[in-house]
């Protein structure tokens, strides 16, 4: 099959023309694909109580614990590998008569511990945390814009070993507060390039070098035979079908 695919990929060219079309089609935010900004909303029901379980109101807002000064709620943040987190915003509501109950929202990366591991390591993502005093009534506030690339595997604690990493959003809710949810602004990114080019005819100086390397590393292309990719060759409809079906894992009807 790999020989077939190499044959199939011998000529390709106009495929890349869609880049311009895609760019034109995705200027606004909120799409699922492309590399522009989009927003993921983690509503209050997505959160689990760390200290007590908040009660959900009919309007979707969740109560904090009134028996403690603060309630911690946590939601898993699941975004694709390489997603860049750009901002977190918190939506809250202070229902008691006391203003200025501080609420903390933070993006955290947690090391999954191996046997014999020391203390759990949880990193508050730099810039991914905001503390605010929510006055009476509904309010929202956001972190400053940030740039954090999510990776499922990285050396989180700096001990030289790669760790499996889980991400979550923590909300430390002030007394008397309710929270409606957290929005996460993020975007997809193309992966960083390898030190050594995979294909002889796509050197690091090629404008499409990072993109072609990303395709190769993802298993979507093996090139056009030998050590080459044939970047200037036109693309047949057969070849394009191979690209799309392999890339997207098409198609599994029920």
């Amino acid at each position, binding site marked *: 099959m790999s020989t077939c695919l190499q044959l199939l990929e011998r000529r390709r060219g106009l495929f890349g023309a869609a880049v311009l079309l895609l760019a034109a089609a995705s200027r606004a935010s909120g799409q699922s694909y492309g590399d522009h900004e989009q927003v993921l909303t983690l509503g209050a029901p997505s959160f689990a109580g760390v200290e007590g*379980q908040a009660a959900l109101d009919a309007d979707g807002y969740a109560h904090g614990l009134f028996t403690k000064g603060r309630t911690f709620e946590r939601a898993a943040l699941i975004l694709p590998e390489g997603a860049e987190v750009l901002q977190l915003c918190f939506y809250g509501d202070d229902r008691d008569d006391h203003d200025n109950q501080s609420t903390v929202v933070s993006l955290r990366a947690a090391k999954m511990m191996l046997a014999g591991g020391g203390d759990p390591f949880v990193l508050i993502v730099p810039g991914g945390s905001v503390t605010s005093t929510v006055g009476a009534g509904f309010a929202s506030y956001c972190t400053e814009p940030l740039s954090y690339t999510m990776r499922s595997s990285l050396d989180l604690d700096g001990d030289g070993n790669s760790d499996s990493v889980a991400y979550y959003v923590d909300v430390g809710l002030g007394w008397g507060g309710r929270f409606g949810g957290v929005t996460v602004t993020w975007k997809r990114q193309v992966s960083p390039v390898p030190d050594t080019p995979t294909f002889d005819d796509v050197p690091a100086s090629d404008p499409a070098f990072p993109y072609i390397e990303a395709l190769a590393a993802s298993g979507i292309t093996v090139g056009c035979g030998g050590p080459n990719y044939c*970047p200037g060759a036109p693309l047949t409809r057969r070849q394009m079908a191979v690209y799309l079906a392999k890339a997207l894992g098409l198609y599994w009807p029920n």
Partner: protein
Amino acid sequence: MNTAGRRIASVLAALAWTIGAGLAMAQSYGDQDQELILSAAGFRNQNLSNNPNSDGYSHGGLFRAPLPLPQGAELRQLCLFARDTASSAVTASVVAVKLVPGGGGDPAILTVPGSLVSSTHVGYGYWCTDQFSYTVRDVVDVDGDGTADAIAYYLQADLTESPTLEIGGFRVVWRRQESPPPQSPTFGDVPITDGGFALIEAMAASGITGGCGGGNYCPESHVTRRQMAVFLAKALGLHWGN
């Protein structure tokens, strides 16, 4: 060189993240292995007392988290992160739960073959199943009654007999697969023997292409920029701005 040709990979590459040449690393698209890390924060205790500690670990009970993988994803391996202050058994698995329609019998729960991991330990632990292969489907005959069932998949950690044990999360290794082709070719010019048969059929079944007319696909024709736009916009569901 053809500038457009140089950008061949750009569109899909924008969707496909990977780390250089590392095969064990994760990407979102393509058919290589990738990993999903789910922390305890994503799990709900079936005993309705989901109380992760401040460090993210969760105490006893039967914990489940939805496993959000695409139709046709191949599950490859399951690893559990946990810790125990004493020494007790824990089992972890992927379960497929039948959603019971009106008048249905008992809920059927299938433990996905190959996914079960069980161990005993003190302190932090990390256990993995052997590599296995299970294809995730939205509709499966879970209870073997000859009727397809709507299925929900869960990652499950059973801590009911392990009050001193806490889960930290799961690592799920999976990859995308191309779908199995139909028995009869859709297009007259793409027979089963065609090297791109299965992949072209996948495109057709997904509604991304209707062929080039006359029951054909014209596999050797080049793609125009117009056609490319149609293919991509349909494939990715572009574009829904706010």
